[in-house]
């Protein structure tokens, strides 16, 4: 197990390095650099450009030097000082802007994962056991629709329906009163009364996919002789199902987190924009449209890092429940 963990960790470090490289490439993509944009904004505001300050910034970020030097300064700043650079639009260090929003992202996405599993598990088991029943067909149809409706459309639809039926707009994660408050019971209730919509929207596609996979896995397992044996021994039916085939069928399901998570992070960006959530998504969109590249790069990088770490956790979880995985992959 230890060896498995070390190899996975090494692979993760390499992946993280690649993530940082991609994020830096995106920072460098737009024509011009941060300084020219910065000076242009200062000039357009009629402010005087202080040459000494510009020079200091130029040295700090290594502008005008080869990309590799700039990358080195950028990445060492992040690793040693936790400094992701400056956001020129907000005139503040990137770090002060992103952590709160990233926390909200993790919260919403984490809740979505939990909801996904709690809905998908019982339904998946039910439709596999009651194959070709009415419930099975309903779940299949629902699953296809869940997969085909893009998340942001679902969010729009939900927003529209709640406006027409209940006269309220859904959106945001906190009411203004609790916006900046510390966590407390009333704040939690307030959060839950608003967060159900985005969480539900985010969970649909994943739930549909999980049910489909669980159904297929479980159907394969239910045919195996050990199930018949368990039944022949006189075990109650619920025990036959839950104790053996479900446990085996769950293993491949855990590994789906590897692609479920990128999709989830991806769609949360766009759903957050539609539902106006204070997560990293809208901030990313805004920073990209205003070409605030250090902020955008930091968000892209951190979203990538989150995904990689989440995938690693799921891999380790899988290796822990299913020892065959450890021996299978060196």
């Amino acid at each position: 197990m230890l060896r498995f963990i070390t190899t996975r960790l090494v692979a993760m470090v390499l992946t993280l390095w690649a993530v940082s490289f991609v994020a830096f490439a995106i920072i460098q993509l737009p024509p011009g650099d941060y300084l020219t944009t910065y000076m242009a904004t200062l000039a357009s505001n009629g402010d005087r450009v202080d040459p000494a300050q510009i020079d200091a910034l130029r040295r700090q970020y290594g502008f005008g030097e080869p990309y590799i030097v700039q990358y080195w300064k950028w990445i060492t700043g992040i690793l040693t000082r936790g400094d992701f650079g400056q956001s020129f639009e907000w005139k503040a260090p990137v770090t002060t802007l992103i952590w709160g929003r990233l926390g909200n992202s993790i919260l919403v996405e984490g809740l979505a994962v939990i909801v996904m599993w709690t809905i998908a598990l019982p339904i998946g088991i039910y439709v596999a056991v009651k194959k070709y029943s009415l419930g099975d067909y309903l779940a299949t149809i629902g699953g296809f629709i869940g997969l085909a409706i893009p998340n942001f459309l679902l969010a729009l639809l939900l927003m529209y329906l709640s406006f027409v039926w209940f006269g309220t707009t859904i959106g945001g994660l906190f009411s203004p009163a609790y916006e900046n408050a510390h966590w407390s019971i009333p704040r939690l209730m307030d959060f839950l009364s608003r967060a159900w919509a985005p969480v539900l929207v985010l969970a649909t596609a994943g739930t549909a996919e999980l049910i489909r996979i669980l159904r297929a896995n479980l159907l394969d397992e239910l045919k195996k002789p050990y199930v018949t044996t368990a039944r022949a021994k006189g075990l109650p039916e619920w025990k036959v199902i839950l104790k053996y085939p479900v446990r085996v069928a769950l293993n491949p399901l855990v590994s789906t987190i590897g692609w479920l998570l990128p999709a989830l992070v991806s769609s949360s960006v766009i759903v957050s924009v539609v539902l106006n959530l204070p997560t990293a998504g809208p901030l990313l969109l805004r920073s990209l449209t205003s070409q605030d590249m250090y902020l955008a790069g930091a968000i892209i990088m951190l979203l990538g890092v989150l995904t990689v770490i989440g995938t690693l956790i799921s891999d380790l979880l899988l290796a822990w429940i299913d020892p065959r995985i450890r021996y299978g992959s060196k």
Partner: protein
Amino acid sequence: MAVETMPPLAETAPPRARRESQLALMWRRFRQHQLAVVSLWIVVAFYLVAALAEFLAPVDPAFYSARYTYAPPQGINFIVNDENGWRFQPHVNGYKSEIDPAAMRRTFVIDPEEIIPVRFFAPTEPYRLAGFIPMSVKLMGVENPRDPFYVLGADRLGRDLLSRLIHGTRISLSIGLAGVTLSLFFGIIIGGFAGYYGGLFDSAVMRVIEFIRSMPTIPLWLGLAAALPKDWSALQTYFAITIILSLIGWTELARVVRGRFLSLRTEDFVTAAQLDGASDWRIITRHMVPSFTSHIIAAATLAIPGMILAETALSFLGLGLQPPIVSWGTLLQEAQNIRTLATAPWLLTPGICVVVVILALNFFGDGLRDAADPHGR
């Protein structure tokens, strides 16, 4: 030597009772999947709409009329019932406009009294279908061009949603095809090399693919799309977005191609061709590729929905195609605001098209995938 011991072919060949070509077998297999057949027709219908956009759209997608801001859908009625009794007359109803004193806003109500006859194959100003076929009729039109004709409603500038939807279909569906074609090109070259030669290149390619697939795609796409210069023309943006989509889209197809190459590499007929002294190029193009073309086509079909969704999402967020271009994404962008949506819920119609096309392409692709291997199962 082996040739001499082989009996003449005619003696061992089985009696030719019923032999069907591979294609016929596939078609037979495909037809068993009823949902796929229905989906095939839906997909064909959508692509026909895309091809005939200028003919089908009642007006130019950019034609606007400030008098009919957010006019609701009129629908088309076919029967007129007046003092002369029932008769067949396709028509739309006019609008009565009312000023809502509370909101200080003009709202439109369908006026069942006013009947505006609709003509099929109505003559219009000459235009070129698909850019080169000169035409001067449209499928539908009203007699007097000043009469309102908004079958699916109007948007904030009083533009006809139906016409915009039809033209958007062309852009959205073609970007799906173009993106997949480009992805296929990269996928076949990269996946083919990796699968055929294996070794270091193969493992490097696989690591890159794994890496790209482990990343959340929308932030990456957004980052790339945001770097496009704002002053690019519509055509340049269109191609740039296609390239950006296929930068990530090639991975899935490359994986399929590589897998096929890997499994075929050790087949007897490939070894035979190698022993015959055929060049790698000839083996790949003449022996290997034809044997898995159907699989590739199926995989490519299944990749189109992802492309369409990605374009829609990007344009919806305002970083994909830009407004003078009409696509489902840019149309949905108009519906982003809850106030707009409450006034004009019909702006969500492009969403219905997205869902229908995505579902149809998925079922069609599933059917193709099953049919690609007609001897299996």
